């Protein structure tokens, strides 16, 4: 029996629909496959290369096998600690000001500046820290690297802290006001503790984000094949070390780069994934 034109048209539409829905499902599956491909390489290549010495030893001279990235792991933690000390108070109090005190117009303007700052490419943040700190000091340093990472953290953390504070119900503030508590004590004793877990999570996420950054560190922290000599001299960091090893021609250093990536992924993706898993469906989507 011949199909009528309407039947044919209907079949055609159903076919197109099936094909397009299939394509949508395929993109999702394909992208998940890419994720597993990337993480799989990191885990397998990194897992094969990683050993105890990786965490305890310094890099060996080029050409000599073995050695580790102990200095880079410690260096990354030091630079991150400096970034945290600089960024967390700024972001915390700015978050409080935006959520508790600022007029709508001012808060909107500040938020705009913060989000614009978050959009500045991280390599430009590196230039900023270079011209502002490295050049006057005359040396690459852990401080300059920490400052650059702080610039990455501040916009992320300030906005997230503000969002966390805003989730505190206004009735709690009113209850405290009714008891005659001054407003600064309301903020510190009622609002901040209530939002505490959210604020701490936000800080961890911001640290994880900054910890994975390479570009701002290349010409601020620079890198160092040995242990750092204080905060005002060049310091090795994990991402920069991975970059140098990966770009070079030595197979042994490539293996170490994979091992370094495994540690980096465990530190950053691990934290971010854990938080997202715990806070599913809440306001941490910007990460």
């Amino acid at each position, binding site marked *: 029996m011949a199909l009528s034109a309407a039947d044919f048209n209907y079949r055609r*539409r159903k076919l*197109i*629909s*099936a094909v*397009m*829905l299939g*394509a*949508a499902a395929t*993109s*999702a599956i*394909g*992208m998940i496959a*890419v994720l597993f491909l*990337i*993480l799989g*390489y*990191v885990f397998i290549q990194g897992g094969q290369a990683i050993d105890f010495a990786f965490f305890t030893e310094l890099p060996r001279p080029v050409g000599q096998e073995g050695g580790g990235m102990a200095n880079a792991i410690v260096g990354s933690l030091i630079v991150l600690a400096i970034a945290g000390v600089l960024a967390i108070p700024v972001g*915390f*109090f*700015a978050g*409080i*000001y935006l959520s508790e*005190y*600022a007029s709508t117009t001012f808060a909107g303007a500040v938020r*705009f*500046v*913060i*989000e*614009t*700052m978050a959009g*500045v*490419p991280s*390599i*430009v943040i590196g*230039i*900023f820290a*270079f*011209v502002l700190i490295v050049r006057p000091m005359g040396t690459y340093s852990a401080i300059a690297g920490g400052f650059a990472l702080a610039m990455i953290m*501040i*916009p992320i953390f300030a906005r997230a802290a503000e969002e966390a504070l805003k989730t505190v119900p206004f009735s709690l503030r009113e209850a405290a006001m009714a008891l*005659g508590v*001054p407003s*600064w004590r309301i*903020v510190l004793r009622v609002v901040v503790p209530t939002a505490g877990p959210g604020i701490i999570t936000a800080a961890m996420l911001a640290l*994880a984000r900054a910890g994975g950054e*390479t*570009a701002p560190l*290349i*010409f601020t922290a620079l890198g160092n094949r040995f242990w750092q000599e204080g905060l005002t001299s060049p310091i090795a960091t994990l991402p920069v070390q991975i*970059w140098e090893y*990966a*770009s070079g021609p030595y197979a042994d250093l*490539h293996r170490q780069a994979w091992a370094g*990536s495994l540690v*980096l*992924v465990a530190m950053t*993706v691990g934290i971010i*994934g854990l938080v997202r*898993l715990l806070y*599913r469906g809440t306001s941490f989507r910007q990460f």
Partner: protein
Amino acid sequence: MTVEPAEPGLLQKLQASAREQVTGSPGDVVFKLLALGFTLIILLLAGLLLYTVWTGASESIGEFGFFSFIVTQEWNPVFREFGALHVIVGTLASSAIAVVLAVPVALGIALFITELAPPAIRGIVAFTIDILAAIPSIVYGLWGLHVLLPFLDQHINPLLINYLGWLPFFDRPAFGFSLLTASIILAIMIVPIISAIAREVIGSVPTAQKEGMLALGATRWEVMWKVILPYARAGIVGAIILGLARAIGETMAVTMVIGNAHYISANILAPSATMASIIANEFREATYSLYLSALIHVGLVLMFISLIVNILARVLVWSVASDPGGDRR
């Protein structure tokens, strides 16, 4: 008859103390100023960022001029000649190709998660895609350099040259280090960004609109193509531009696979360079101050371009957010 207070003036005292507690307690003023101070630090840092990068670039601006630097294609450190046209073109080309590759996939994923996936796997798919956005760019670079690049070089590039070689875009010399490799890595990196925002915007399309279309006999694809995507259009464009902004500023992954060659070529299988990649690649080797200043000048241009793109995206996403139909953000 009035009630006499036990102590003359007590009422006034109590009132004053209450008023002080509510409005003028010294702790309050100090705390508010403290919070304001830190907020102003952020604004100060933002201003300082612009000023500092500008002063860093001033020597180059003085030598070449801000705008003629942008339209000149010269990069010859030996002869002290610098111009950024080729890296600006490289940045825009790699980002544009990345967006073209990423958008269909990202929208497919967003539609799959919001409209197609069974509720049981919806969350897990969204979570998995989001994890892609958490991977540090250096890890993308390492993977791109040691896994993707050899694969493309051995298996894909020969095919492209064989079958599409008549186009100027796929030509020899083809190395693994190429604009195309960089674009593919960038595309993988921006898919989760675009799809996360698109998901939210698509989620704001009213169910009644979709049901109405279904009741008219539309297929599920027609609902998506003719109702959902047009309704969410502005937000999706915003999402795409945010992805573009991310691609423009991305440094490490691109630096490691693009080859950092200073010329413009229509051949996307040839090495190229982006603004971010030459800064990362050459900054430490810049041996004299004009060279360094030229690189900072490139950074200044990069900052302006990404600021413009970012602000454009924010405005678009906001315009959706302020739309009474959608309750976003």
